[in-house]
């Protein structure tokens, strides 16, 4: 496990720097599919618990029987996968952006506890948000007349961090928050994957969606919770002209 984590860390660094460089150049990819693929891959990377949660548990000494089980996701801390599916694409992106902003803020408070991992994940989140911005622009250019949609409330119980009552509770809360973050990113990845599937369905009208080779969703960090595959609202108008598959 440890070696696996060690292998993953440089990869996350490289990807993070890649995303950062993209954000820094402020050049958005003009191709919808490439951008979508990048978002998916970033989501897959960010749902990986070895980047944040696992080091945190190890450093805080929570990897002992009796404590591990209490590091569960707090219900409602992050938008559920169903809630994300229920959003329009623009709404989804806005919600995603807002939630990740809060996560970034919360991670800053965790710096003392997890300095290295926090820094890397912070880079990833910033890169991801940059791509969200690009996707949002791409969608907006294809659908100027889209009616504004309210943003799904972000993580309700993630207000600005307050001084913890005690260190033990703080450890557990932070652990749950990090697990919730990874679960959220897993859900985001699922929804983004369905974006591609919706395109395939709209074209082929087949019953079962196909996934592109190598575009398999990694197993998620969240336990339980049946994932509905297709409750997504079709909004073909959001596809950017000239880039949408025909």
């Amino acid at each position, binding site marked *: 496990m440890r070696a696996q984590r060690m292998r993953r860390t440089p990869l996350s660094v490289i990807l993070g720097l890649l995303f950062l460089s993209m954000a820094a150049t402020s050049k958005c990819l003009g191709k919808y599919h490439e951008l979508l693929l990048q978002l998916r891959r970033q989501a897959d990377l960010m749902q990986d618990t070895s980047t944040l949660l696992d080091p945190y548990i190890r450093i805080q000494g929570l990897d002992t029987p*009796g404590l591990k089980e209490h590091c569960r996701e707090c219900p409602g801390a992050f938008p559920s996968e169903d809630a994300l599916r229920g959003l329009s694409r623009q709404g989804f992106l806005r919600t995603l952006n807002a939630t990740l902003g809060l996560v970034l803020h919360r991670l800053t408070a965790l710096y003392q506890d997890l300095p290295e991992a926090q820094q890397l994940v912070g880079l990833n989140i910033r890169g991801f948000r940059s791509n969200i911005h690009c996707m949002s622009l791409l969608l907006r250019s294809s659908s100027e007349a889209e009616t504004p949609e309210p943003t799904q409330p972000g993580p309700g119980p993630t207000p600005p961090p307050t001084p913890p009552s005690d260190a033990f509770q703080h450890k557990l809360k932070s652990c749950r928050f990090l697990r919730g973050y990874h679960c959220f990113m897993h859900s985001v990845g699922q929804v983004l994957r369905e974006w591609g599937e919706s395109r395939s369905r709209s074209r082929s009208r087949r019953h079962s969606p196909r996934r592109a080779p190598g575009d398999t969703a990694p197993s998620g960090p969240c336990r339980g919770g049946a994932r509905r595959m297709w409750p997504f609202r079709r909004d073909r108008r959001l596809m950017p002209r000239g880039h949408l598959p025909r």
Partner: protein
Amino acid sequence: MSQEDPAGENYRTTVKRNRVLHWSWESKLPLECAAHFIRMRSMVDDARIPKPGFWSNWSSWEEADAQNSLGHDPLLVFPKDKLVEEGSNVTICYVSRIHRDNISCYLEGVQIYGEQLDRSVSAFELKNVSFIRKRGTNVFCKVDQGGALGGIVLFVSKVLEEPKDFSCETQDLKTLTCTWDPGSDTGLSKQPSQSYTLFESFSGKKTLCKHRNWCNWQVAQDSQETYNFTLVAENYLRKRSVSILFNLTQRVHPMTPYNLFPKNVGATNATMTWKVHSIGNNSTLLCQLELLAEGKVIQQHNVSIKVNGEYLLSELEPDTEYVARVRCAYTNHFWKWSELISQKFNTAEAAPSEAPDVWRNMKMVSGHPTVSLFWKPLSKVHANGKILFYNVIVENLDKPSRLEVLSIPAPTRSTELTLDQCSYQIHVTAHNSVGPSPASVIVISGDPGNEEVESGRVNGTEDGFSVSWKPQSGDATGYVVEWCDGPQDLPCALQWKNLGPNTTSTVISSGAFRPGVRYNFRIYEISAKRMAHLLEKKAGYLEELAPSDNPQVVMSNLTSHSFTLSWKDYSTESQPGFIQGYHVYLKPKAGEQCPPAFEKTVLPEDSLCCKHTIDNPEQKTFVVENLQPESVYEFFVTAYTSVGEGPLDAFTKITTLDEYSHILIRIILPMIFCVLIVMIICYLKHQWLKEKCYPDIPDPYKSSVLSLIKSKENPHLTIMNINDCVPDAIEVINKPEGSKIQFLGTRKSLTETEFTKPAYIYLLPTEKNYSGPGPCICFENFTYNQAASDFASCGHFPVTPQAPPHQLGPLTSPENLLKALEQNYMNSLGEIPAGEANLNYVSQLASSTSGDKDSLPTNPPEPALCSEYKMQMVIPLGLASAPPSENSSLSSTTLLGQGEHYR
């Protein structure tokens, strides 16, 4: 002042008027786990009041109960976020609001057991807690089977250590730098790392240090010389301090010198220059200049300078890399050397200081003495630079001639010279960029002479070969021991060792020497004329081994009682040890004793065997004698050295001959040979023998009958003369079967000729093939039948002119002949019907000139006209004689073969 007892703690203090008393107290048991009570009493403590005084009554108990403000969590653990030092004892407790018994508590996952204080509170004493991590030690309690969870983080800090090695120094008398060893970091999530504060007591100043292990202090301008520093380390739990007192000028640690450079670098000297940072005004620094070669300090010099340093280094080696390094110290009060500054430099090259070590190897190539010159590369000490080439100057000592100079580029270490029969002096010099080395001189005689000397042996030891020799002449200027590093069968890597004139022994050692390899050493004496003469030859092994292979034995001279073994191809020189002799093993048949020259021995596989030892390594044959005839023996020959004998190989079987076979061989073989010779002679001379012993037609002159006739003096019986008969023709009709016919004249068999038709044979030439004057010949043969002579007459056998000569039939059988005559008489003039004639005729011609057919003249005798011949034949007595006619008057018996008309 506090005081503890099992029931509680007492606190006593003195208070004064109008002064508020504060007592801070910390309970071992967290206040949240149990209610605490306090009461107080007082007494007057005044000198004016005689003692003992009287205590007042106790006040009523005041309760401090934190349980009411705990909140509504079902399970709470206390104390929260407590900070303790490593090794402390800590009491924790839990307060349960669910009143269950199945609550377990764990310290870092390990269950702990405590004391139940009441129905909902239990206390646990953690003794001697240890530091686990900076994020604190997790202690938690939980209701079993996945119930509520409560916990605390106990922050265990390492004990703050006293700073070690605290010292202060200055590099420029302006700033003091104090350093120390901080020890363990006591920082936790709950507590920052310990802080360090520097306090100077004389000036009363202090500074908070920004670093964990050093701190700068600005020296005051008021020329304060003495300083008393106190370093205080502090964290939430403890303070530690350490002090030093010193004089500023005694703590001067100069800065590292700079600009260290070599100047005027020669082959053996160089000047080093450097600079130092000034300390105060006109301060003098003591600098130490060290010179290192190959990592070792070879020179050390002290130089006092103010700002600029300079020193001339001498006695350096040419073309050598050196490292110069400098450090300085404050001269007034030595405290510490500055850091070192280093600089590499190379000295210049110089001419090589020593002649190369040269040796030679002489051999004759195509009748010319050829000298291989070898030399060893000069050591770095003597080369004084990179050797570029070697000069070889050849000088003829016997007649004045031009010097021959060869320039051989480095790193070549040998050359070959072809000389004549004169003596030569060879000079070898090594050259680098500066110049040549002294010459190494060697004299070579054109006539190598007979340098054969006897070989000796030398023993090898762990150190090598200890070679010694006896000086021959008193004017030796030195000795050279020469050898090859490799085995004999490899190309020789010639090695040599020069030794002084007074040396008579040396130890030759080489990492290339291997056990079991024969090394040959030659000891040469170098004369005053620098000529080398072979003194001795030695051979030896670093370690002798047993032979690795056995001789290839050839068996010969096998008799019934002995056989000979020989192994002449076995080379004793190439063995892994000195061959001392051979062991001949013989296995006789079961129950038989060993032959006399053998002794019984037991082989490694416990079988009995006979063994004969040959202690002469040059004896490579052996006759095994006194054996039993017709017996099976097995033999095996192996060589042995001082270490042992060769490997035990398979025995070779041999069976001795029986006792008489050799006699038989001696008799039968010559007989067979003689018979064979006779047979060959008979075959080669069979014609002659036939003539002599059983001729086809006997020579009447040689017949014994003739003598008989003569003895009886029968005038009627005479031998026919060839002139007596006139030749004629005889016609012979052959039968169709492939019978044989013998041609008298040619003695050739005509079996090749198959007659499918009746044929006529021209026995005498007809008009076509004979042009003689008369066609008449008579025959007489006394050897066949005497009775036949009574009927002798010149029978005429007409020959059919149409019959070709090659259609001759056989005339061998008398019966056939008789029939032929019969037919002849009955059918004269060729009236014999074809296919019915079956005449065989045999005749013999008695030549008047010679009786030997082999010596017949090449021109056969021409029959005289109308000569009378008597025909000899076997004729039945009742046969009437036919009267001669014109056509069949007399017959000729001449057979005409191809290319031969007469015989």
